């Protein structure tokens, strides 16, 4: 009897409503990967439509797709799809929905994009202000080329 019940609940469909009104019908076990949604379901068992106020339809679509298809191969290709802005917005969505696998995947993508890049580039891309004092700046500049000066013949 218990088995029947769980079988019924695993094929149960839920509706997620994105911030711009777009609706997504997903299976319960997919929705449960989003811990925020899981908490919502735990609180109100009979709910059928769950509002996701912080995430746009197009991002929610990507997130749902990710949950359905995630594996090593998919993840490796997934992270190449998006530009920096999208990565950040997807990460915002993943944070809000509390999906740790997607968070890791997106952070890894961001790390790859900032490899070998200067702090100036990173600030520009993330719209971050440089709040170092001039003394700190000077110290950082000195530490940057710490092992290269003076001794090498190129």
């Amino acid at each position: 009897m218990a088995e029947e019940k769980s079988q019924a609940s695993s094929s149960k469909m839920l509706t997620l409503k994105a911030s711009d009104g777009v609706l997504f019908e997903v299976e319960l076990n997919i929705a449960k990967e989003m811990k925020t949604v899981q908490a919502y379901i735990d609180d109100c068992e009979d709910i059928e439509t769950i509002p996701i106020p912080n995430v746009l339809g197009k991002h929610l679509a990507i997130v749902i797709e990710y949950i359905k298809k995630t594996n090593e191969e998919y993840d490796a290709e997934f992270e190449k799809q998006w530009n920096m802005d999208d990565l950040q917005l997807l990460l915002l969505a993943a944070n809000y929905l509390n999906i740790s696998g997607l968070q890791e995947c997106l952070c890894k993508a961001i790390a790859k994009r900032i490899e070998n890049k200067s702090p100036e580039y990173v600030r520009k891309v993330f719209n971050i202000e440089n709040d170092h004092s001039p003394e700190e700046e000077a110290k950082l500049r000195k530490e940057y080329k710490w092992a290269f000066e003076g001794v090498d013949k190129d």
Partner: protein
Amino acid sequence: MQVDKMASTKLGMEQGNNEEDSNRSNSSNALPLSSSGKKMKEDKDISPLDGDMLDIVSKKLVSFDDLFNFSAVCKEWRAVHKIYWRKFLESQSPLIVQTTRNAKRFYSFYSIPEKRAYSSKLSYFRGKSYCGSSSGYLVMAGANNILQLMNPFTRKQKIIDISVVRKDLTYFACRVLLAFTRDSDEFVLVASCKRFLGLYVYHSRNSSWKTYSKRGHPWKVVDFVLFNNTIYVLTYKAEIGVLSLNSESLKFLKLKNTPNVPSWSYSLLSCDGELLVVDFVPNKVLDVYRIDWETMSYVKLQTLGERALFHSPYKCYALANPGKWGFESNRVYSIDWDSIDRDSAECEVYSGSNNELVECIMLAGSSREVRSRSTPYWLDWCFRNQHDEVDYSLVE
């Protein structure tokens, strides 16, 4: 490729996956406007990169230089990096530092328990000889009569002129120990070479070298170690002497049960408050002694107990409670020149009880810059948390 193409087209997303796309930070090819009409840039007031996410990003970075750049972005990122880096440096788990012939400038630091390699860009090492690692510094001997000491963890460098002792120290088989004087940037460097087995000490406070045993006379020195803020020296006859920094002398301990077979491969180790003497040849010799201070004698150990040894052609180290750091007790982890003939290096693990080979660990997943298909150039153990300190006043 697996992403649903139809869905993506419907969403108007671009399938760009190269640097050019991500470099363009204007929103021309970015998202279409949301239904509320706001442009994406304004939504950037909320950054997804809060402390937790920044922490994850920093852990995905492989190169110490990328981590340094990460910390240079702004105060918040620097704070995240500081916490991560402090924890990283506290680890007593040794890294295997190595370079390969084609790598030119990149040094790889491999962690066996994490099965991953970190990398760092230091100065060119072709034409320089590696002398050892001590207190987190990699010591390289250059062609122009200098020793270059580089600490990739603190990004500090020291240059020592060795013109004075150059003739007595052959570069390619050097042994060094770097120790700092407490609460000061001053340091001493103890040096010896395997050819002559002499003993020399450099003092930074007056930029001078002191000779203790010129070319192995009067003592043939095989190893030295810092123990209780004092430098202990081991001769090939297994005599242990205390090095006085204020005079050019060694004061030898009167120990009973000193091994009566001399050996060029004796090592002197400090482990969790104990002084050990080890003779290790893979599969052939494993003699481990503990110095018992109450009886003032050598005590032979039948097993390593809750210790692990880390052996390289340069030096031997001991680690207490290795289980805490991802290694096993009663084991000798050995990296050797022999393994360098193969395409990638490996670590052989021997039993501390009977010196039999227990396993071989491939150093997989080397970082991109240090390509595993080119033969390793040299490799050694590096303890990132090590910071030896001496006290000038201790020995008389």
